[in-house]
């Protein structure tokens, strides 16, 4: 299977983050092309490419842009660079490779939706990456790609950076908006959707870093070329992060529809130290786990993952070896979501806490066999009842592990009860 390089075309280049390198590899050419087009044409172009949001939800990007009212005087573009989903490290890689790719993507996207101002919201623990990004923004201003009358056009646009302070929930788009407004990162009820009323109640588009970073390539090469990659419903390439005990963990750019097993065995080199595969979490901590048998049947695209009752999510493939306790992983998972629940919705605040309590009982072998069913029952009552998806993000992996590995958990409890 061919593996086109869109985001990773800068990998291996000397000084890949510099403006000079970016310009030598057609950098900012797409911006020239975009500024010669009408904004509505650009939105149509992105719609035609079939690009879907790469942060996890997979919503069509062009469609999201088209919801922004054209006549609103003040609009914002926000880049969600908060990358907090456990197992995910692809947006960090984009900043490591070429932050100008993101900057150019943001200028083009802002022009398309008519935003005059944008922020890149980044988790503050990415200290080095933030410095690289700020350098790229500075260079872009110095060379007339940002600021007033960009490249002699009528379009003026400012781009700034904003640092988070350690809160997973700020990766949720309305939580991010609350944080940027200087508040607790608590998500807001939708509707109204940010496209109509977002940052400071103004129309706002929130896009993931990877989504924005592929925009220049799509504009430059045309939507047909992008559509030709991947599957019909999941076009293009995507960055996948693979971690766990594989020989070559890291970030890989793959066409959507790529077989998961092939990715693990061929690209990442398979498991190391003679380990065998037990399970895979295919899309970050909130994605339901797949057993080794299921791994062999799925491909890396939105539809295949949905058919297998899990999700592509952020593209974080976490490989779990035989011998790894699922009791331990489930405890880590529910503890994480309990810690990160923002606390405003009862099913989430209390549900994640309950799951954590029951799970600690199981972990310490002070539980009853029926506590496995209790975990599933709590999870069932946490879904679809809250402002944002964090509660669901805890419920889904809990139910998957408690169901698919229920026997392992019960046998773990029994070993304790029988000394």
């Amino acid at each position, binding site marked *: 299977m061919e593996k086109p390089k869109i985001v990773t075309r800068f990998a291996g280049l000397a000084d890949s983050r510099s403006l000079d390198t970016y310009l030598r590899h057609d950098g900012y050419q797409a911006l020239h092309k975009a500024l010669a087009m009408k904004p509505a044409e650009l939105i149509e172009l992105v719609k035609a490419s079939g690009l879907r949001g790469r942060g996890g939800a997979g919503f069509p990007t062009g469609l999201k842009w088209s919801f922004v009212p054209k006549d609103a005087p003040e609009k914002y573009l926000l880049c969600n660079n908060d990358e907090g989903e456990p197992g995910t490290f692809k947006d960090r890689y984009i900043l490591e490779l070429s932050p100008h790719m993101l900057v150019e993507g943001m200028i083009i996207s802002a022009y398309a939706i008519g935003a005059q101002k944008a922020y890149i919201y980044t988790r503050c623990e990415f200290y080095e990456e933030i410095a690289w990004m700020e350098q790229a923004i500075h260079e872009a201003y110095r060379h007339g790609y940002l600021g007033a009358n960009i490249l002699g056009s009528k379009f003026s646009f400012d781009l700034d950076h904003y*640092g988070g302070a350690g809160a997973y929930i700020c990766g949720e788009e309305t939580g991010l908006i609350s944080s940027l407004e200087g508040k607790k990162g608590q998500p807001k009820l939708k509707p109204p959707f940010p496209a109509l009323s977002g940052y400071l109640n103004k129309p706002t588009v929130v896009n993931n870093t990877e989504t924005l970073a592929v925009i220049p390539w799509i504009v430059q090469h045309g939507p047909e070329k992008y559509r030709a990659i991947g599957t019909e419903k999941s076009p293009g390439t995507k960055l996948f992060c693979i971690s766990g005990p594989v020989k070559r963990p890291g970030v890989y750019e793959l066409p959507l529809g790529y077989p998961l097993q092939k990715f693990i065995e061929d690209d990442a080199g398979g498991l190391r130290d003679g380990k065998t595969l037990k399970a895979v979490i295919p899309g970050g901590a909130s994605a339901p786990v797949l057993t080794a048998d299921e791994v062999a049947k799925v491909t890396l695209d939105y539809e295949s993952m949905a058919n297998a009752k899990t999700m592509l999510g952020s593209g974080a493939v976490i490989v779990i070896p035989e011998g790894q306790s699922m009791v331990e992983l489930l405890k880590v998972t529910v503890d*994480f979501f309990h810690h990160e629940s923002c606390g405003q919705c009862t099913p989430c605040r209390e549900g994640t806490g309950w799951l954590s309590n029951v799970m600690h009982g199981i972990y310490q072998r002070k539980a009853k066999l029926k506590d496995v069913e209790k975990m599933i029952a709590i999870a069932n009552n946490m879904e679809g009842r809250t402002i944002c998806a964090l509660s669901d993000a805890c419920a889904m992996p809990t139910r998957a592990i408690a169901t698919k590995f229920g026997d392992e958990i019960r046998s773990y409890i029994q070993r304790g009860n029988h000394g």
Partner: protein
Amino acid sequence: MSSLFSPEIRQKIEHYLQRYETRRSAILPILHCIQDEYGWVKEEHVLALEEHYQLPRVQVEEVLTFYSMYRQQEPKQFRLMLCDNLVCTMMGYKEVDSAIRGHLQEYQHKGKDCPFSLEKVPCLGVCDGAPAMLINKTRHLNLDANNVVAILKNCDTLATGT
């Protein structure tokens, strides 16, 4: 004007208050900037922000207590932030954690002031280098029980405490 903040910090606060659409948006960056300078955010800093910059205490406290990277206690010289999430757990976080605790206990046994504080943090976004830890603002990857002790011993030589 408050003499609590140095002229450089005062200048940065003024800068952040101008930089965003609302003064309230400046709270997160201002708290980062105070913490970078003083190591933590003291109650008197919060009071000074209200008195001299009209940032309501309730709004500042809301941010300070919600986000986990802000510190409200006096820090040790080396803030160890060890990831205990999924991938780090699978890749040996517990051995690293034990080794760190062992090293920190040596200070206790010797009755010396320990220059380290240890906290568990959620995923740091570097799972390809698990187990991972931040020491202040520096990332340490692919840790194990041996190399983490070597890193801490290196910190020992840089410790400024008594």
